[in-house]
């Protein structure tokens, strides 16, 4: 249907607009409720919070206009850069490992390795548990003095592994990454599985005939076919992990100190602990812009925006 393209040469007047509106009224109707919800609960608040970022405001008394002041302060704030650094580490590692494990799990299930039904059932269970529960549960498991993990190491004689998982500033962030990978590998697995199962059996039969082994089959045959879904999953994981807040907050509050601080927790603390809403909103702006940029770059390189009928 090339109707959109055909009209490129006509003058773009209001009448033309109204005509398009009417002609495609059904489509617009279909998307209308969603657009309304977006406008009310996401776009308007987003714009509002962007405007807060231009002010110095503590939430109760009168705001004061500062223009770019908050952003200048942000660039000089060592806590911001620390949070950004931690966020990037978190995003990269979480994405890499959840996608890697998820893909491996999906292949194992698709190829019907022994016990595949168990795998399929079990790996997704952690996804169904809320992040808060996971955070509190692992907080108790990883407690250095009486958590079961360290006491297990003790029983096995592995005293050197009895680390302060959440109390050691060098470890805290990676511990949280580990827990996140634990929880969400099943999520990526599900998405990959849907795509992999679509690969027609004939391709697999041909590969078997040609004697293509497991590993090769996975990387050289399956992967290219599901490339599109893989790209989408990776992008989604990047976006979701960049926005992380709940799990870090529950497990360490961004601590100890600010060892595991990420942008989300930094945002919350600035807004509600130090009462600097303007400043916090500028963090929000920066976060949104970063994620948006990442997604745009990603889309551009993976051509996901196009209608591909492949």
């Amino acid at each position, binding site marked *: 249907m090339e109707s*959109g*393209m055909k*009209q*490129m040469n006509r003058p*773009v007047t209001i009448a033309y*607009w109204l005509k*398009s509106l009417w002609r495609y009224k059904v489509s617009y109707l279909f998307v209308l409720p969603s657009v309304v919800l977006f406008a009310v609960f996401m*776009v*308007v608040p987003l*714009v*509002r919070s*962007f*405007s*807060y970022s231009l*002010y110095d*405001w*503590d*939430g*109760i*008394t*009168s*705001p004061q206009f500062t223009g770019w002041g908050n952003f200048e302060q942000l660039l000089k704030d060592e806590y911001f850069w620390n949070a950004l650094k931690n966020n990037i580490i978190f995003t990269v590692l979480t994405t890499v490992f959840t996608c890697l494990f998820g893909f491996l799990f999906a292949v194992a299930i698709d190829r019907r390795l022994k016990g595949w039904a168990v795998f399929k059932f079990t790996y997704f269970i952690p996804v169904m548990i809320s992040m808060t529960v996971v955070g509190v549960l692992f907080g108790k498991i990883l*407690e*250095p*003095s*009486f958590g079961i993990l360290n006491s297990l190491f003790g029983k096995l004689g592995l005293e050197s592994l*009895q*680390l*302060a*998982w*959440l*109390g*050691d*500033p060098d470890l*805290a962030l990676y511990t949280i990454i580990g827990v996140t990978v634990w929880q969400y590998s099943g999520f990526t697995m599900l998405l990959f599985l849907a795509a992999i199962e679509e690969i027609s059996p004939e391709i697999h039969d041909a590969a078997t005939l040609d004697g293509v082994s497991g590993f090769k089959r996975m990387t050289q045959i399956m992967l290219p076919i599901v490339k599109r879904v893989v790209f989408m999953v990776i992008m989604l994981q990047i976006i979701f992990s960049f926005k992380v807040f709940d799990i870090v907050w529950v497990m*360490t*509050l*961004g*601590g*100890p*100190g*600010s*060892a595991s601080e990420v942008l989300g927790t930094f945002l919350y*603390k600035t807004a*509600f*602990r*130090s*009462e600097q*809403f*303007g400043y916090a909103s500028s963090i929000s702006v920066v976060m949104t812009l970063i994620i948006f940029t990442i997604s745009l770059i990603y889309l551009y390189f993976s051509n996901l925006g196009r209608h591909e009928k492949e």
Partner: protein
Amino acid sequence: MNKLNRHFAAVLVVLLVAMLFGCAPSSKEPKESDSTQNDSSSSTDASQGNEQVELILSTIPGPVAERLVNDVEAFMKENPNIKIKINEFPEAKYMDQGPRLFSSSEKPDLAWFWADADYKKIADAGVLEPLDDMYQSEGWDHVLPQSTIDRVRAKDGKVYAVNTEIVWGPVVYYNKAAFEKAGVDVPKTMDEWYQIGPKLKEVGYIPLVSGNADVGVLILSGLLANSFKPDDYVKLTNSEIKDPVNNYNHEHVVNAFDHVKKMGDELMQKGAAGVNDTDARALFTQGKAAMYSNGSWAASDALLGKELPKDFQLGYFYYPQIYNDIPPKVAVYAGNSLLVMKGTGKEQYAKKFLTFVMSKERQKVLAQNKQLFPSRIDLSQQDIEPMGPLYVDMYQKMNELGVMNFWHTEVNSELSTAARALVPAVMSGQKTPQQAAQELQSILEKSK
């Protein structure tokens, strides 16, 4: 992108920019027309008389809530036409969101809150009901210390809150049996404190635990209180005068952070920087730690009182002396208060409850319930005795040593928030004591 899409984009951008500049944030000062009510409540609103009235009281859980429950139940018996519902909020969230809640359409009628900087802001914003008349009519101005009353005074000179209980600290609770086993005594100086560490470890205890992740700042407050003479301390904690000598560049402040680190390294367990108060207290009540640092409220029946096994011998001591010429003190906080919201139409009933809670009888009952310490100073020794020997002893000792305000409740919220993170940061080695002190100093210098 074809022309149509470009037009879409243009229109959208224009709209967004318009919204950006049209939507400045607004202050929360309530307008004259603000007279909201419990729309979902089923009671009819009565301006007076014996009609049924329902009040909502917001608070944090723990000893505070348990005490309020007792008072509410007794009050409702005496006043059958008034029903009070208690709304609990988790402490951290309440601290963060309280002011917003109090100026919203869902505000409670009464609230328990801390009389700190946030309180001043909402008082100044006109959200609360002034209580000056009550201080006079109920005689509160005679039974509360002047400093306590001045603390709740807003810019317009009126008072908008009344202090319902006092808490103090930091207090180090210890396991007497553990001390006996290790053959150690209560330390009188910091050095002595470090010395009993290894002996306690030898008999299998973690010497000291504390909620460093969430309430670590108490340790800092305690150390600072013992690092400055009273007059200098006042200059230090007043964030508005930037005293040239008594500020965070002072070597005693750096030393305080040094002690924070040393306490973590020598007296606490691995990873202590990340432990929160609940887990720390659990280690103490389960007999794995010999000492537990918190405040006077931990001794209440809602906490240690109910969590310790019956045969546990509980002792306490205050933070020991650091410098020879500075006698140790105890920090006290008289900011736990009840507030009445303005514009609910039920202020008089709310005030009635305040009168009830602050009455001598109820404050005596507070002592009997062993939850928190009464704020009225006109109670006799006999009245306080029901709190139990430990609590009474703590109170007497505190008065002997002399009190000062907690550092973290006196300074502005930026400093206290920063300190909350700095204590675990220093303990875990992320920041040096010098860096921590410097950071506080630069926050002080930047603040207005």
